[in-house]
């Protein structure tokens, strides 16, 4: 059930990296809103800034090179960018949580999984030992791990990749967060396991009215799991629409090109369609629209000025000079 209030509002978020080659504007004025109960997909090529955006939300940008230099991140009305570190540790893992991409390495190999779930609960909630124990078992059952009492005492290397990701999920859900970010959470899983994982989380999301940000480069996942989708290119969101609307009426040439490069079963082609050119170097962005060098509809103004956001249809936003 998607309500109308925004659980998360990101306004003009900017995160820059200061390197020896220059300033890399990894997140360059990103704005979006996430409603309660909504699953927002964040898609784009590798290096477009999706992951950094997510880490910026919880202020875990790699220091000292990276810095959040501007914008607002309003979680249920509170601006996270104004909080100090101590306050942030109370928010991470409790109100906003994340599942990372690599199931193999995101769990600490030397602690049991029971311990790894337990410590999250211990840090954020004051519960007695028995209560925590019960909670852990409940979480494991929630993510459909069989025989939780046995599994709790096992180590990550004794489980399969799919199981490990579900455990990461259990950890993320253990404190009833408002927002769950899945950063390429299924990328490293087998296709069949992916499907299982997605359906499980869809179910959990509906039951708990959980808001999710699903970061992915796979439109198939977007189609299955997301209510809304935002497309990122070179640090900016170039298009933002409901999933069905995006698939049916893509507005930005980049989105169109991306959708075209998805191979379709019915088509018989000799070569697959791919977008010409390379994504730009983020420390040396061209003036004007970042996609201009690769755009087949490029105009003179595109090379001069970056297009502002326009509502091309109700609830459907794009940043392209083609749309006026």
């Amino acid at each position, binding site marked *: 059930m998607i309500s109308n209030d925004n659980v998360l509002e990101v306004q003009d978020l900017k995160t820059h990296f200061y390197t020896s080659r220059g300033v890399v504007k990894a997140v360059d004025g990103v704005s979006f809103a996430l409603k309660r109960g909504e699953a927002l997909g964040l898609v784009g090529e590798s290096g477009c800034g999706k992951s950094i955006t997510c880490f910026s939300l919880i202020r875990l940008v790699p220091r000292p090179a990276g810095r959040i230099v501007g914008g607002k991140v309003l979680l249920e009305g509170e601006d996270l960018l104004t909080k100090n570190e101590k306050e942030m540790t*109370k928010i991470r893992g409790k109100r906003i949580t*994340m599942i990372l991409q690599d199931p193999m390495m995101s769990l*600490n190999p*030397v602690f049991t999984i029971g311990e790894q779930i337990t410590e*999250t609960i211990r840090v954020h909630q004051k519960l007695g030992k028995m209560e925590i124990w019960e909670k852990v078992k409940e979480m494991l059952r929630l993510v459909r791990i069989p025989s939780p009492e046995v599994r709790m005492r096992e180590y990550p290397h004794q489980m399969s990749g799919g199981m490990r990701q579900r455990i990461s999920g259990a950890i993320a859900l253990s404190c009833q967060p408002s927002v769950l970010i899945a950063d390429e959470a299924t990328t490293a899983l087998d296709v069949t396991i992916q499907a299982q994982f997605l359906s499980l989380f869809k179910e959990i999301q509906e039951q708990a009215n959980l808001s999710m940000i699903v970061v992915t480069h796979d439109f198939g996942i977007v189609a299955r799991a997301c209510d809304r989708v935002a497309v990122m290119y070179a640090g900016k969101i170039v298009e933002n629409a409901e999933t069905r609307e995006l698939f049916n009426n893509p507005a930005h040439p980049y989105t169109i090109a991306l959708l075209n490069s998805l191979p379709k079963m019915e088509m018989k082609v000799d070569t697959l369609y791919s977008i010409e050119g390379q994504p730009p170097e983020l420390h040396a962005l061209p003036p004007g629209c970042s996609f201009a060098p690769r755009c087949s509809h490029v105009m003179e103004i595109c090379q001069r000025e970056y297009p502002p956001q326009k509502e091309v249809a109700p609830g459907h936003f794009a940043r392209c000079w083609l749309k006026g």
Partner: protein
Amino acid sequence: MANYILKRLWQALICLIGISVIIFFLSHLSGDPVLLMASPEATQEDIEELRRTLGLDKPLYVQYWVFISGVVQGDFGQSIKWSKPCIDVWLSRFPNTLLLGSAAMAFSLIVGILTGVLSAVKVGGWFDKFGKIFALMGQSLPVFWVGLMLILIFSVNLGWLPTSGHGSWKHLIMPAFTLGWYFTAATTRLSRSAMLDVLDSEYIKMARVKGLPEYLVIMKHAFRNALIPIITLAALNLIMLLNGTVITEVVFNWEGIGRLVVDAIFARDYPLVQCCVLIASMLFIATNLFVDILYAYIDPRIHYH
């Protein structure tokens, strides 16, 4: 696990036999002890008689057999120079080396790990820079120079500490520091790089994402993983420490094994050299085995069949 231990013990035995053969033949190649023991007026026949008394006239393989059958029964032979069973001589000196080695090891572990971890956590900061210089100095300054400088500063000039010998805890400070500094360097560098490696891992990112306070991330999650390579090094270092204390022992007049072995080599005291080297090998193998078993407890990923 029991099978694993048995297998390792068997391998250790074979290893030791091989070592004993090598030591035996190498030390006998080095020269003749009889000449060093005889007085200058001895005639050739006197020397031959001495050789016979010591059993050094028999063919090498016979001597080896005598040696190895003794070892099996716990008899490491009689020291030519000390006229006492080698094992007694070794036992009288070993506790001193153990004391010195342990103190140096404790110093190097504590300082090394602390410095390394702190350097890694505040990478690039002034502590990191200081740590690197400290480590570099420890590895490049010659041990005897460090020892003598310490004596010069703290004994001769300041008069705070005794120059040498042993007796009180004050006697232990400078030798332990001298010996330990080199290993502190190695431990610092390893701790730092192990920590940096670990701090880069996904599970550390995850720990932060979970909202764990930074001290927990470092001390619990990161350190526990970095400990694995540090412990290996520490165990190997301990054996190197125990056997490589010669220079420190000479400078500080510490009555330990290192000096004992070197003097024995110069005096061509084969039995004592063999005894010391063989025991050192045993200790090394035992420590290795111990560390491997310890691993299984520290790192759950390792499973021995």
